[in-house]
C-alpha cells in the first residue's frame, strides 16, 4: 500500500512538473534510455547537468561582473547551458537561456543580468524539484518498486 501511495505521488509529482512546464518530453526520453544495464542513467545525467550548470552559472556571474563584458564568452556559456538543459528536458531553464542569448546578442548588460537571475532561479527551482523527484524514486526503489516512465509519459 505504501508503495502504491509512493508511486502515485511520484506520478502526480512528475505530471505536475510537466504541466507546469518545468520538464518536457526529453526528460521522459531519458527514462526510456535507462535500463538494466544502465540503472542510474537518469540520475547520472541529471547530476552531470547540475555540476555543469553550477559551473556555468558561476562563470556567467563572473563574466557579467567584469568592467568590460565579453559577450562572446557569455554567449558561449549560455549556449552550453542551453544545450545541457535541453538535453535533460529542463524546459524553463532552456527558455530562459533562449531569451538570455537574445539579449546577449543585443549586448544589453542590464537585461542580461536580469536573465542571469532568472536562469539562476529556474535552475534552483528545477534542481529542487528534481532532487525531490529522485528522493521519491529512491524511496520507491527502496520499497521494492520500479518506475515505468514510459507508461505514464505517453
Amino acid at each position: 500500500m505504501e508503495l502504491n501511495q509512493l508511486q502515485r505521488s511520484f506520478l502526480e509529482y512528475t505530471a505536475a512538473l510537466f504541466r507546469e512546464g518545468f520538464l518536457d518530453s526529453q526528460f521522459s526520453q531519458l527514462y526510456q534510455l535507462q535500463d538494466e544495464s544502465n540503472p542510474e542513467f537518469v540520475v547520472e545525467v541529471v547530476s552531470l547537468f547540475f555540476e555543469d550548470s553550477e559551473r556555468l552559472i558561476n562563470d556567467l556571474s563572473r563574466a557579467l561582473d567584469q568592467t568590460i563584458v565579453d559577450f562572446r564568452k557569455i554567449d558561449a556559456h549560455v549556449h552550453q547551458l542551453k544545450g545541457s538543459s535541453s538535453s535533460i528536458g529542463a524546459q524553463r531553464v532552456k527558455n530562459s537561456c533562449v531569451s538570455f542569448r537574445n539579449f546577449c546578442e543585443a549586448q544589453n548588460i542590464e537585461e542580461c543580468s536580469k536573465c542571469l537571475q532568472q536562469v539562476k532561479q529556474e535552475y534552483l527551482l528545477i534542481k529542487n524539484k528534481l532532487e525531490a523527484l529522485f528522493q521519491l524514486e529512491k524511496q520507491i526503489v527502496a520499497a521494492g518498486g520500479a518506475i515505468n516512465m514510459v507508461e505514464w509519459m505517453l
Partner: protein
Amino acid sequence: MSSNCKQSSSNGNLCSSLKQKKAWESLHRTADGRKWKRVVVFLWLVVALCGLVCALTSSNGGNSERKVETSVSSEFKTQVSLEYCNVSKEEFHALDSLFIESDRVASLACCRESGYEMPSSCTSTCRLKMKGSEKWHKLVAENVEFNAHCPSRDESISTYVGLPLSKNKTMSFISQLAFSSISSGHLWYKENELQMTELHNHATYNCESISFCLAKICLWILAGMVASFNILKLHEKFSSQKHEIIQETPRAQQSQLLQQSQSSSRSTGKWRKKILVVFVLAGVVFSFWLFWYLDKDIILRRKETLGSMCDERARMLQDQFNVSMNHVHALALLVSTFHHGKQPSAIDQKTFEDYTERTAFERPLTSGVAYALRVRHSERKEFEQQQGWAIKKMETEDQTLAQDCNLENFSTSPVQEEYAPVIFSQKTVSHIVSIDMMSGKEDRENILRARASGKGVLTSPFKLLKSNHLGVVLTFAVYNTHLPLDAIPEQRINATVGYLGASYDVPSLVAKLLHQLASKQTIVVNVYDTTNKLAPINMYGTDEADTGLPHISNLDFGDPTRKHEMQCRFKQKPPPPWQAITASVGVLVITLLLGHIFHAAINRIAKVERGYREMMELKHRAEAADVAKSQFLATVSHEIRTPMNGVLGMLQMLMDTNLDAMQLDYAQTAHANGKDLISLINKVLDQAKIESGRLELEAVPFDLRAVLDKVLSLFSRESQEQGLELAVYVSDQVPEVVIGDQERFGQIITNLVGNSIKFTQDKGHIFVSVHLANEVMLPLDARDEVLRQSLNIVQVGSNASYNTLSGFRVVDRWRSWENFKKFSGIPEETEKIKLLVTVEDTGAGIPPEAQCRIFTPFMQADSSTSRKYGGTGIGLSISKRLVELMGGEIGFVSELNIGSTFSFTVTFTKAEANYLDTMQQQCDLAVPEFRGLKALVIDERRVRAEVTRYHLKRLGISVDITSSMESAYSYVSCYGKTSVSEHLAMVLVDQDSWGKDICFPFHNLLKMIERNGSKSNSGIPLKIFLLATCISSTQRKELKLDRLVDNVITKPLRISALAFTFQEATGFGKMGHNTRAKPSTLRTLLKDKQILVVDDNAVNRRVAEGALKKYGAVVTCVEGGKVAVGLLKPPHKFDACFMDLQMPGMDGFEATRQIRSLESECNKKIDSGEASVDMSENFAHWHTPILAMTADVIQATNEECMKWPSQLRHLAATSDFPLATQLCHDLSESNPCSFHVELRLGDFRSAMGDIMINSTAIKQEYLPTSCLSLFSGHMYCAVPLRSEPYT
C-alpha cells in the same frame, strides 16, 4: 482646282486625323481618352479651317485689288491713245477747212513742221486698224478658251470667288465692246486682250498660290500631328519601358528605382513644360511678326498703288499740257508765217479770232491765246496810229471780271523802251487787245525769257486777269527769220517780232483731266509750283486733312526754269489691315490651342504617372501584406500546433488511465478531433509556405509503390466502411525507385484520394494508377492491360456494367490530361522521368459551374457540399502548387453523377541502380519466401485482376488470370494433368466471382490436385483466398469455418497485408516476424558498432552515449574537434561519428573538413599502393559517416528551422562541409556501417536538435516505416512510432 485641292487635302487631313485618332485611342484606352481624342479632332478641324480661310481671303483680296488696278490702268491708257487719235484727225480737218484757199506750199510746210507730232499716232492707228480684225477673233477664241479653261480646272466653281468675278468682268467688257466705236474698239480689243491675258495669268497664279498655300498648311498640320503623335508615342514607350524595368527589378530595389523614376519623370515633366513655354512664346512672337510683316506689305502695296496712280495722273497732265503747248507753238509759227511772213499780213484780228475759236478744242486747257507785237519805243507812234489805239498799261490791281472790264479803264502805257501790245486775241480774252504785256511784271519776265530761249516759257501761277482762277501764262516768241537751232540769245532777241501767249487755267485743267479718270474719289491730287522750294504755290487742290504720306510726282511742262510737282494722297485713312490681323490672330489662336492641348497632355501624363506611382506603392503594400499574411499564417499555425500537441499528449495520457467506456469515448473523440485540427493546421501551413515560396522540395530516392501502399492504407478503413473498392496500380515500366520528394508526392495523392472518398458514397471504386507519361502515347497494343482497358471504356455484359474496376461507369480519363502542355514532350534530360498519375472515382462529380474554381484556395464546389462533405477546400490548391513545383501539371474531368478523374504529371529523377538494392532490403524482410510461386486469379473484371496481378508480382509471384470459376475449373483440371515447372501455390477468387454452387466442385478439384501435387512438389499446400471489398466478421468466420477458403483478404490490397496473410496461411517466416519490429531493426543496425560522439557539453555527451548504448553500440566520447580528428585519422576502428557543430576550439565544420582531408590522403596512398594492406584492413576506401548534431542553429521556431538547410548549403559552397544530403548519403552509402536508413532532410533537420522536443513531430503522419535516422530513431521515435499507422 483650288477647291478640289482643298477638298482632297481636307479629306486627307480628316483621314489622317482619323487614323491618328485610332492610334491615339489605342494608346489611351481610358474613358477620358475618348473625350480627349474628340477635342483633338475638333482642334485639328478648327486649325485646318482657319488656314483655309486665311489663304482664301489673302488670295482673293490681292486678286481683286490687282484686277481693279489693271482695269484702271488699261482704261486710262485706251483713253489717252484715243485722244491722241482724235486730236490728230480733227487737226487735219481744221487745217483743211481753214486753209482751203491758202497756198499749198505753205500748208505743206506747215504740215512738215507739225509732222513730227503726228507720225506716231498715225502709224499706230493704221497698225491698230490692221490688226484689229484678227485680234478680235483671237480674243473671242481666247475668251472662250479661258472660260472653258477655268471650269475644267475648277469643278466646284461656286466656292471660288475670284474666277466668277473675272468672268463677269470679261462679260462686261464684251458688252462694252459691242457698243464702242470701231476705231476705239480696236484699241479696246487690244487693251482687253492684254488685260485678259493678264487676268488669266492672275487667275492661274491665284489658283496655284492658293493650292500651294493649302498644301503648305496641310503639310504643316500633318507634320505637327505626326510630331505630336510621335512625341506621345515615344513618351509612352519610354514610360512603359520604365515600368517594365520597375516591374522586373526585385522588390528590394523597387523603391529606389521608383524614386529614381519619380525624379526622372519629374525632370522630364519640367523639361516638357519648358518646351511648351518656349513653343507658346515662339508662337506669339511669330504671330506678331506675321502681323508686322503683312501690315508692312499692305502699306507698301498701298503706297505702290498710290504711286502708280499719281505717276499716271502726272504723266497725263504733262502730256496734255505738252500737247497744248505744241499747239500754241504751232500757232506762234502760224502767226510768224502768215502775219509776218506775208505782205500784207494774211491775218487780222478777225481771222485770228476765227481760227483760234475754231481750233479751241485743241487747247482745251487754255482759256485764251493772244498775240502781242514787239513794238520799240521808236515805233510806238507809228504803231499806235496804224492800229488806231494807244498802248495801254496793265493794271494788276484791277480785279473785275473780264466781261465787265472796259478798255477805257486802262490807262495809257507810260513810256518804255519796248512795248508788247496785244494785237490779236481769242475772243474769250479780247479785252486784253492793246494792253502792253511788258507792263505786267510776270508777263514781262516771261516775254524776256521766251525770246531769249526760243521755247515756251511759263509764268509762276497767279490769279488770272479777270478770273478768279489760278493760272499760268505760256509765252512763245515769234521770230521774223528762221533761226538755227543753236542760235544764241542775242540773235533770238533781235529776231523777235512778237509774242504769242496762252493762259492756262490750271485748276480747271486738272479737274477736267481727273474727271476723265476712274477712281477719282479715292485719291486727292494737289499740284504745286515748286520753283521756289521754300514756298511752293498750290496750283490745284485743297489742303485736306493729312491721310498719310503723299506721293509726289514731278511734272515737266517744258519750261526748265519752272518746276512743278503733283502730290497725291488717299482720301480715306487706310482701313485696318484685316488680312494681317486675321492671319496673326489665327496663328496666335492655333498656338494657344496647341499650347493648351500640350499643356493638358502634360498634365495628363503627370497625372497618369502620379497614378502609376500610387498604384505601384499600393501594389507593394498589397504584396507586403500578402507576404505578411502568409508569415502570420505560418507563425500562427505553428503557435497553435505547439499547445495542440500538448493537448493531444495529455489526451493520450488520459486515455491510458483507468477510464470507463463513456470517458474513454469522450477522450478518444477529443483526441481524434485534435488530430484533425492538427492536420488542418498543417495544410494551412503548407499553403502558406507554398505561397511565401519557402517550400523546398527534397530529392531523395524512394520507393514509389511503397508510398502508394501507405496512402492506400491510410484510407483502407474508410473505404471498407463505405464499401468502396480502392485500388492502386503501377505500370511495370515505372522504375521501382525514383528520386524526388516522396512526402509531397504522397501528399498530393492523399489529397486526391481523400477527396474522392469524400465525394464517393456507397458505390463504385477509387482507382489510382501510375504510368509513364510516354506510355499513353504508345500504340494501343503496346500499352499495358490496365491502360488499354481504362482508355477504352465499353459496356460489357448485359447487366449494364462497364469494364472498370467496379463495373460502374466512369468518365473518360483521356480528357483529364488533354490540356497538358508539356505532356507529350520527352524530357530533355534522359535521367528524368515523367509520371502520369490518375485518380479515378465514381463519385458525385463536380458541377460544371464549379469546375473553374476547383483549384482556387479555400473555394469549394459549393457551400452546400461544404456543409455536406466538410473540408477546407485547400487540399486541391496545395496539390496543384505541389504538382507545379514538381514540374508537372494537373487536370481533371468530371461529370455529375458519374464521377471525376484527376490526372497529374510529375517529374522525378531516375535513381541509380545501387539504390535498388538498399531499398529492396525493406521488402526483403517479408518477400523472399514467395519467389517463384504461381497464383491463379479468378476475377470477372479484367482491370481488377490486373491490379491483383500487380500486387502479387511485387511479391515475386507469377499470375494467371481467368475470368470465371468455370474457366478456372477447366484451367485447374488442365493444369493438374500437365507438369509445369512452376508450382501453383494459391488461388485468389474475387468476391464477385464467388458462388457457392461452383465453389464446392472447384474446391474439391483443388484439394485433389493438392493431394497429387504434394507428393511431387515442394510441399507447399495449395491455398484459396477470397478477395473481398467489405465483409463482415461473421461472414468471414463462416467462410473460414466452411474451410472453403483458407483466408479472406480485405481490399485494398497492400503488399504488407498480402505478405502477412500468405505468411499466416503458409506458416512461412514466423521466426522472422519479430525482426520486423523497428527497435530490433535499429538494434541490429547499431549492434557492436563503434561510434564516436564528439560534443563539448558533458550532459549532451552523456545523453547521446546512453541513447546509442541502448541499441548496443560501442560508444566513445570525446570533448573537442581536435581529439576527434586525432581519433578518426585512418586507420581507426569507428563506424560512424556524431559531431556537434558548435564547439570551442575546433568546431564541427573544421573537424569534418580535416577528417575528410586525412581520409582522402589515405585513400590516395591506398590507390597508389603505398599504404600497407593491414593499414587499410578490409576497407578499400576510407569514408567515415559523420553526423552533424547541433542544438543551437535550430531555435524552437519552425521559421528559423527553415533557414537551416540553406545555411548548411552556404557552408558547403564556401567551406567544403558536406551537405546535409551528403550526410544522408554517407549513412546509406557506406558499406562498413550499412546504415541504410532513409534519412530525409526534414527528419535529419529535426533530428539535429531540440526541435523534435518542442514541435513534437510535425510530420508524424508521414513518418515512414523505417526511415528515422538512428539518432532521431532512438531518441525521439517513441512519439511518432506510437501513432504510426503503417508497419
